[in-house]
């Protein structure tokens, strides 16, 4: 009897515990979506068009990020989504227009695009009048100059791009924090003769200065408010939103900037529709996909697309697929051929690899057509000047042209094939699948590949991107990916085809392409201010690299994006290859 009572008591405790676990509070949790207006769409409705167009203001846009920003500071950020989002709190001299069409560079803080000197070494911009910081202080050319000066300080801001460091005539200038000028404006490479004019002096001709002018480093920073590495905790806004709260690594919220005047912003296409922006950081990536579908999150801010698990679910369900878009990007998945490793120093041996490669298998490794299109050459079609050049049968024999591969092997003196190594990043299953697909297809002509995985974090710095390591370890083929900093030939090609940027200390994405004629064409393009002529040179460079068989193009990448029903004014901005974060709204109030 007593035992029974005891058991009952213990059982009651266990049940109570379970009950405690099962019953929840009444607050938080499920999303109250009252006030939603549901839009119905179709697959790719936001590609090339504005889906659910609206001018209605209000509501809170809820972003989620599976990682974290490199930095919210405009001097220290290099992530694509960051450059997309930063338009909400900063105004650059020029900007990629918020619109669904081809990427278009337009003036933002400047009244017009830059005015070059005849030699393209001096560029002048005029700052609009009436633009103010969040505290009501007018924005001047000196604030822009100060912002660029601090971005040059790579000890304090190591993560941002180095274009201004590389292309300006710095004359030894390192940082405003070491500047003896009382106003900290001692950089001679930038002149500010008055509050509206800013003049850049470059160390070489450069026709693409307007692309540099859209870098976040040109966002004005008031020198009196600069707190160095702490500035990221509260960046002073010059855009339509300003920071309300900022818990680094966790979450930040933004509200409307009362001193933003749309009249000063006629060209950028910005539409600050939502009243508030809320960004949660370091959220589990698979959980973000679930929450997008449940309506608990509006936008996956990284813009790289759904994870594999959610991709399968969305593509197999017609209702869900109607809410998805495949955004073309300026990213290429490719394999570099290392001419330092024999017999790939012979062009015909390289051609044999390109002919024999299974291009369909390469595409399958990246998820098939959803993951991207088979690339025939380097430059993705989104980039102005890109011309499809199919020299190795990507269109006619996508599974591999065995006959032509064998002919090429004969020509290179290796009729029975040869052996070499192929490297990939160990943490990336898609790159592993690529290496395996190439191993199988190249084996058909006698080219034996041994697969060598390396850790992702050090892949370019210590292994495949380090010339002496790659040569010593006979890495003939190296699986890579490359995304343009912006959709332009220079932004895409400069780091992967210019032999002069190959650094002995590592960190390279290109080891194989060393063609003097290509280097010369790059220099020519930089001097050419005529846009059409310059874009033709980019296409010619791409063709020359393919003729040299220096790289095996794999896939022009796409991302499968998901748009919940409540989003308004949704479109893919081809300048960033993801939804536009400066013109999107929500009907959820």
């Amino acid at each position: 009897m007593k035992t029974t009572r005891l058991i009952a008591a213990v059982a009651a405790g266990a049940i109570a515990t379970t009950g405690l676990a099962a019953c929840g509070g009444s607050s938080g949790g499920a999303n109250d979506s009252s006030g939603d207006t549901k839009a119905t769409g179709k697959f790719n409705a936001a590609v090339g068009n504005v889906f659910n167009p609206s001018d209605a203001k209000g509501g809170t846009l809820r972003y989620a990020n599976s990682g974290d920003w490199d930095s919210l500071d405009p001097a220290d950020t290099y992530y694509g989504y960051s450059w997309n989002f930063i338009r909400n709190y900063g105004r650059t001299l020029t900007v990629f227009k918020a619109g669904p069409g081809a990427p278009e560079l337009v003036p933002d803080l400047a009244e017009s695009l830059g005015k070059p000197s005849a030699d393209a070494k001096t560029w002048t911009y005029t700052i609009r009048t009436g633009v103010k910081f969040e505290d009501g202080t007018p924005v001047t050319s000196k604030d822009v100059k100060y912002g660029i000066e601090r971005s040059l300080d790579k000890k304090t801001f190591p993560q941002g791009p180095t274009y201004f460091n590389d292309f300006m005539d710095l004359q030894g200038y390192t940082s405003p924090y070491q500047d003896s000028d009382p106003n900290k404006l001692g950089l001679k490479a930038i002149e500010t003769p008055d509050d509206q004019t800013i003049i850049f002096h470059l160390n070489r001709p450069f026709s693409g200065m307007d692309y540099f002018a859209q870098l976040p480093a040109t966002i004005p920073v008031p020198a009196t408010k600069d707190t160095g590495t702490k500035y990221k905790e509260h960046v002073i806004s010059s855009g339509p939103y300003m920071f309300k709260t900022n818990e680094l690594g966790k979450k930040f919220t933004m509200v409307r900037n009362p001193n933003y005047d749309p009249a000063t912003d006629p060209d950028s296409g910005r539409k600050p529709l939502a009243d508030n922006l809320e960004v949660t950081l370091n959220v589990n990536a698979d959980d973000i996909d679930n929450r997008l579908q449940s309506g608990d999150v509006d936008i996956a801010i990284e813009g790289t697309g759904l994870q594999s698990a959610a991709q399968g679910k969305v593509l197999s369900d017609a209702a869900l697929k109607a809410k998805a878009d495949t955004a073309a990007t300026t990213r290429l998945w490719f394999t570099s051929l290392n001419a330092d490793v024999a017999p790939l120093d012979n062009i015909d041996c390289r051609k044999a690899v390109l002919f024999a490669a299974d291009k369909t298998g390469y595409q399958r490794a990246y998820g098939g057509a959803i993951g991207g299109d088979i690339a025939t050459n380097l430059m993705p079609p989104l980039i102005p000047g890109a011309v499809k050049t199919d020299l190795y049968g990507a269109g006619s024999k996508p599974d591999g042209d065995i006959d032509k591969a064998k002919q090429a092997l004969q020509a290179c003196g290796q009729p029975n094939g040869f052996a070499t190594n192929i490297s990939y990043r160990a943490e990336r299953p898609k790159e592993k699948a690529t290496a395996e697909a190439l191993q199988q297809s190249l084996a058909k002509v006698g080219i034996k590949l041994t697969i060598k995985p390396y850790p992702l974090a050090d892949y370019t710095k210590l292994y495949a991107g380090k010339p002496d390591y790659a040569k010593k370890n006979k890495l003939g083929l190296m699986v890579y990916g490359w995304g343009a900093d912006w959709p332009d030939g220079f932004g895409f090609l400069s780091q992967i085809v210019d032999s002069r940027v190959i650094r002995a200390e590592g960190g390279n994405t290109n080891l194989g392409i060393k063609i003097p004629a290509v280097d010369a064409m790059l220099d020519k393009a930089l001097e050419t201010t005529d846009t059409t002529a310059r874009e033709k040179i980019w296409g010619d460079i791409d063709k020359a690299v393919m003729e040299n068989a220096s790289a095996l193009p794999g896939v022009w990448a796409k991302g499968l994006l998901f748009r919940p029903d409540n989003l308004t004014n949704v479109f893919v901005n081809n300048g960033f290859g993801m939804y536009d974060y400066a013109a999107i709204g929500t009907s959820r109030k």
Partner: protein
Amino acid sequence: MLTYIVRRLFAAVILLFVVSAVAFSIFFLVPRLAGATAEDLASRYVGKSAGAEQIRATAEALGFTDPIWVQYGRFAKGLVAGADYPTGPTTEHCPAPCLGYSFLTQNPVLPDLLDRLPVTLSLAAGAAVIWLVAGVATGVLSALKRGSIFDRAAMGVALAGVSLPIFFTGLLSLSIFSYAMGWAAPGGTNPMDAANPAEWAYDLLLPWITLAFLYAAAYARLTRSGMLETMNEDFIRTARAKGLPEHKVVLKHGLRASLTPILTIFGLDLGLLLGGAILTETTFSLPGIGQYAFLALTNNDLPKVLGVTLIGAFFIIIANLVVDIMYAVVDPRVRAK
């Protein structure tokens, strides 16, 4: 007893320094022994277009160019006396115990850890209560009803609990109980933003249960086997022969004797969790020490990794000390010694 505690605390400080030296060697010395140069290490913390000059400057700024003992000396000095770090226009003082600055965010590590500690404490404490009560209760019941359907079912569930990984049960429970049924808070909810204790508990409900499920299973099996062994002991027969009520025999003599090994494991488990419940926090996107550790590891942010290692070691040492003291409370035989 007081002398004992003071002695143990002193030993804990020494142990923490040993842990810091070993951890520092693993993160900073081993890569150098493997052939990595100061520039190789620094190249992880610069933008993709950084040149040799910038990489060299970063290596110097992060102190990689100094000999390893100088680097450790600087770290140890920071622990004892604090350190100064440049922010650009000014210099910021990091008071002792300074665990260093992040290589990537350039923020001091200790305030970050302390800021995240309440989330980890909330998660670990709540889950510990659930797994202890549910696990021990199930274990006792299974032992008393050995071979019954309840026993078999409970042990089956326990087997599932120890076998299923948290990133599976966590995402599954979120899909069902949060997104489909709306009974629980979604992932990414920070319980420290809750307006009241009820909301805090609601936000943590699924993480608690998911984490407790894993541990409760192991505790149920442990309690069951301990109770089965204890209930066959002579002193239990003696207690029954004396005419003690059964609930006293089971709770005061049976369970209490079985508790000692459970307490040992509990102390270690709780100490480990306070150093970060990595899988649970990353699955539920809870901004605690575990998530911080995961992000630090994936980004190679060594000062953060070192900080988490030290705080984890600190909690394990403290938990062991508490367990040793608790032995005396639970087991009269220890007190007698």
